[in-house]
């Protein structure tokens, strides 16, 4: 178990950890006392791991959103303790207002802001390069290339933060956070600092302190010049060098090996991507003809290095990167994830060598993939969101005024695609739904006749929805806000939230039910179970016609949580094929071709439906929807 090794492993142990566990271990070794986070892939396991540290040693918190999270962690730093705040790239936007303020005045105990970017958006709606935000906030950035380095950088980041008296940003990416590597564990910090906030100590924000932030960056640049995270590999001199950072180091190594160019190309690995170590970079530009850049998402070090080049008289160098278009995958430069092939292509161009990648070309793969049957994103078997979406779809159809649906971010954002019956008309960031719905509802007098509803999640509700509701009620807007309440932050790995009444350490705390908040705002609030589908659809349909802002909570535990809790299926679900109407009128394969739970499958021989019992979660909702009563849900013994 990764987290066990990360937390309970002994100094000197060589253990297999993922990048997030390694970062957590590094923080633990560095003596972190406060760890807060709003969950978000691919960052969530960091705080999950730290939550296993005995509560006497560390305070861990799933905060309600990123800005509150960073404020809490910063408070610990003010009191002289080491603190880590973790989030995904999108979360940095939410925390940004505070970050740009606190970074002026600075802080005291080591404060590390860990941000995990998600190139290609494997589990995000956008791919986002947090380094630009760090630069704009004037916060130094460390960028690990491997799991091993992730631990080392986490430790070092605390030291640097204390040296410069300001926060340090540790940038991970999915392929660091979620890959596994061997890590040699170090000793835990012995010193046990007491939290102190001495009388007269103040942390304020003031325009003049812009200078402090600047000076801190100058100090960081000096530290980075001597930093072991920047190094070179390969020959001392070479006419072609690859500047790389993060996981691209590994891709570049692989590219060089595949092309058999060991000894001919130099790798310059940058671990401190902001501010760049200028002298180190200059020394590696001397006498070079070609520079290739390999980094995730945008052209961050590429721009920095070219600026350094422009300010010095170094001779002719050609740069191959995203700006020149040479570093480019199937989505073109800047978009999508890096891989060795992209670098191989660039090297082959620079070195004028013919290289045929083994296997199919990316273009052919794309061509083939268009011939495959489409594999849509799908929600889990038994997922209550599927039932919620079916009810919303039904209600909107019956309402017949072409209701506009403003979506929001969570696993329910799959509602934008096939698995959610393509319901969403808009999808942006957490909390955007109510704002958009509210705005649209104000346009009636200018001719917009369609009503609006928004669909948000329970965790999102606490994170960002409440201001939108207040604004809607205050401004006299008309919209229905549907809260899909599955009682956890499901998308990111089932972290508890304020409604669940459970803390990070699994202890019970005060639950703050959504309905109490809503009613406190004077907004009418009803609750239904999406598995009582017809009733839910009818309620939505009626509520849509009520004036003002309305909230409807669709409450049903996430199928995965339910399965984990009960550890067995509650019901056995099967099809009585003698009753199944199959393709005939009166059904037309509802369960397999429209409803779309992966547990409902087609028996082509019988021409009837069946249940894939290995997949079915036993929720039984399809049994309530089957028009022929052919799907039977039977209680089975525990």
């Amino acid at each position, binding site marked *: 178990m990764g987290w066990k090794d990360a937390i309970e492993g002994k100094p000197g142990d060589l253990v297999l950890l993922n990048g997030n566990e390694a970062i957590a271990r590094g923080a633990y070794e560095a003596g972190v006392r406060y760890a807060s986070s709003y969950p978000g892939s691919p960052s969530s396991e960091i705080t999950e791991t730290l939550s296993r540290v005995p509560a006497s040693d560390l305070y861990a918190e799933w905060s309600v959103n990123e800005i509150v999270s960073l404020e809490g962690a910063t408070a610990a730093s003010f009191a002289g303790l080491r603190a880590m705040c973790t989030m995904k790239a999108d979360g940095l936007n939410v925390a940004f207002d505070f970050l740009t303020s606190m970074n002026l005045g600075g802080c005291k105990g080591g404060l590390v802001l860990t941000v995990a970017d998600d190139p290609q958006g494997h589990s995000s709606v956008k791919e986002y390069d947090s380094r630009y935000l760090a630069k704009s906030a004037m916060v130094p950035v460390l960028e690990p290339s491997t799991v091993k380095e992730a631990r080392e950088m986490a430790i070092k980041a605390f030291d640097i933060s204390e040296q410069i008296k300001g926060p340090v940003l540790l940038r991970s990416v999915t392929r660091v956070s979620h890959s596994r590597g061997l890590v040699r564990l170090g000793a835990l910090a012995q010193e046990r600092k007491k939290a102190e906030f001495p009388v007269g100590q103040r942390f304020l924000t003031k325009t003049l302190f812009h200078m402090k932030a600047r000076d801190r960056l100058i100090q960081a640049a000096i530290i980075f010049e001597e930093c072991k995270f920047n190094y070179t590999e390969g020959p001392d001199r070479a006419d072609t060098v690859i500047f790389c950072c993060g996981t691209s180091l590994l891709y570049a190594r692989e590219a060089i090996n595949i092309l058999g160019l060991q000894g001919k190309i130099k790798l310059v690995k940058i671990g401190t991507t902001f501010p760049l170590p200028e002298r180190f970079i200059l020394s590696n530009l001397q006498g070079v003809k070609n520079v290739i850049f390999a980094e995730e998402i945008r052209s961050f070090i590429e721009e920095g290095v070219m600026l350094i080049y422009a300010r010095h008289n170094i001779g002719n160098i050609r740069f191959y990167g995203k700006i020149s278009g040479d570093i480019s995958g199937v989505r073109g430069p800047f978009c999508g994830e890096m891989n060795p092939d992209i670098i191989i292509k660039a090297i082959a161009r620079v070195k004028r060598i013919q290289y045929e990648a083994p296997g199919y070309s990316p273009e052919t793969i794309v061509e083939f993939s268009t011939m495959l049957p489409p594999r849509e994103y799908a929600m889990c078997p038994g997922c209550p969101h599927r039932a919620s979406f079916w009810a919303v779809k039904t209600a909107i*159809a*019956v309402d*017949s005024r072409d209701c506009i649906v403003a979506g929001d971010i969570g696993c329910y954002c799959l509602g934008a695609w096939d698995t959610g019956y393509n319901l969403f008309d808009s999808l942006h960031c957490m909390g955007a739904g109510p704002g958009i719905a509210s705005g649209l509802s104000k346009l009636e007098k200018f001719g917009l006749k369609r009503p609006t509803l928004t669909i948000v999640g329970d965790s999102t509700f606490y994170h960002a929805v409440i201001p939108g509701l207040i604004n809607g009620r205050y401004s006299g807007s008309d919209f229905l806000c549907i809260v899909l309440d599955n009682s956890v932050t499901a998308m990111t790995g089932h972290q508890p939230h304020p409604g669940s009444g459970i803390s990070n350490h699994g202890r019970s705390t005060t639950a703050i039910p959504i309905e109490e908040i809503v009613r406190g705002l004077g907004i009418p609030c009803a609750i239904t179970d999406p598995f009582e589908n017809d009733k839910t659809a009818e309620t939505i349909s*009626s509520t849509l016609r009520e004036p003002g802002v309305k909230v409807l909570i669709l409450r049903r535990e996430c199928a995965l949580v339910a399965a984990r809790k009960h550890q067995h299926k509650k019901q056995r679900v099967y099809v009585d094929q003698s009753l199944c109407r199959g*393709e*005939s009128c*009166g059904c*037309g394969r509802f369960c397999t071709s*429209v409803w779309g739970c992966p547990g409902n499958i087609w028996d082509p021989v019988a021409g009837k439906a069946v249940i894939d019992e290995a997949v079915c979660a036993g929720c039984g909702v399809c049994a309530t929807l089957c*028009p022929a009563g052919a799907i039977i849900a039977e209680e089975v013994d525990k």
Partner: protein
Amino acid sequence: MENCELEYGAAARLKEGVLDPDLCSGCGACVGFCPYIKSYNERVAIIHNCQICDGVCYRICPRGFTQYTSLRREVFGAVDFDPVLGVNKEIYFARAGEEEMRSCGQYGGVVTALSAFALKDGFIDSILMTGGNLKGTKPVLVSSTSGVAKCAGSKYTAAPTLSLFQEAIKNGYQKIGVVGRPCQVTASRKMQQAPEINGQRISLVIGLFCMGAFSPELYTLVKEKGLENCDRMDIPKDVLFSSSGEDTIIPYDEMRQFIRNACLSCYDPLSELADVSVGSTEYDPGWNALIIRTTKGAALVEQACANGYIEINPYPSELLPLLKRAVFRKKKRVLGRVDFTYLNLPAPEREYFLSTGDDD
């Protein structure tokens, strides 16, 4: 079953031919059999286009294309019929035998009395009726005489009563009765031709007179005017809401806008295909007009009389022309509408209305 191009499937035809042009009468016949058609608050919609060619939904819809002549023949055999009143054996003034039923009924309580008798005497084992109040209607599957009385009283909107038919089938009922508006009567007859939904189990159809139902917006108005707790609504001329003896009257001209579009092109104010049709006398609110149309209807009325469930009087001869004229005018008006395309009427019948003046 064969799958069709999008625009030719039954669901698509129902959507494009009936629902989108606002010709749905809200009868509920198409609702409840498959997962793709739902109705809430008297609005009916197709949720998903199933692409099934000869689907039952379009076939049984009273506003789907209807071969009226052959449907009449299915119900009545080859008999002459009156183009205005439809096939009829007798026409009476009638009322419930018991005071209790009369007082809960809209007028004379004949529908309540006949339904209760039919259940008790085994004509039927269940009956689809319409309950609710001025907050909204509610289709009800009734199998006891006490349940019948609970549904007494007219609700002047388009309750989708027939949406509960499959519920009756699931409950195993074999002889199912229907009390419905004329569109629901036509739908019931079309359902009887559809064995895949067990339509043949419909065994008694009691039709109401109907000059039109209001759209569900009525309930918004009623709420705005604070009338939702009234216990009775009637349309003697203007629209009347009564609450324990206290009356509120809204002029009909103000209410006209709420009449369902589908009702404006309805050719059948008297439930011509019913076993018996029941309406107001437009004369004495303690009595009903009762038209006996089929042999089954005649038998029901005869036995209900014999058992004291209803009592009948001759229809006053001076009133009949008034009824006929009202129906004549309505039919003539509908024949002139461009959206009246769902009934295939025999040419002479069409001609009769178009060539005859109002006062003939």
